[in-house]
């Protein structure tokens, strides 16, 4: 299982029919904050690629936000999922499992952060971002 795409965005969702992603303003990696702590939602996109052996098997996605000291900010959050190949899957292609929506973030310090993505207990990717003081 590999993280093929991982983005923060202004808005993101997956179409229930067909699985296409609708993403607006993808690639956010700087947040200007006027006060701390800042609790807010931000849209995100993940595309996880899987192979034959990983299809139709239960897996666990875990999301953890790390602060400037590399310590978790908030709690590790897990989601079960079972990827499966679609009707139009071509032999030899890796499948894609798409996740989109919103992460309720807490920023407690100015500095570098990361949304760490673990799959089945192993670090599989991340989305780095920075919190900077906002001009009032």
């Amino acid at each position, binding site marked *: 299982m590999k993280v093929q795409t991982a983005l923060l965005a*202004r*808005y993101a*969702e*997956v*179409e*229930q029919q067909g*699985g296409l992603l609708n993403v*607006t*303003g993808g*690639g*956010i*990696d*700087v*947040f*200007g*904050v*006027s*006060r701390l702590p*800042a*609790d*807010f*939602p*931000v*849209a*995100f996109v993940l595309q996880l690629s899987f192979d034959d052996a990983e299809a139709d098997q*239960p897996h666990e996605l875990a*999301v*953890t*936000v790390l602060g400037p000291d590399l310590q978790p*900010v*908030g*709690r*590790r*959050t*897990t*989601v*079960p*999922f*079972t*990827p*499966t190949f*679609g009707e139009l899957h071509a032999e030899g292609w890796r*499948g*894609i*499992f*798409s*996740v*989109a*929506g*919103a*992460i*309720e*973030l*807490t920023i407690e310090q100015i500095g570098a952060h990361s949304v760490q993505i673990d799959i089945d207990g192993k670090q599989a990717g991340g989305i780095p971002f*920075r919190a*900077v003081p*906002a*001009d009032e």
Partner: protein
Amino acid sequence: MSHETDLKEMSTSRFNQLNLVVDVRKGEARVASGPQPERDFDALRRAQEVSGVTLLTHAS
């Protein structure tokens, strides 16, 4: 249907996608469906502004 049941059903169904709200403050995730604020572009922006987030951009 509870959010937990909803999430379990969605994540084990024959869909290859999830629309989620991941709350790392509570350590909880739930399926986002219907007219919820997190599926509304303007509501997301308003929630960010209320929290003092006035800039979202790309650094490099």
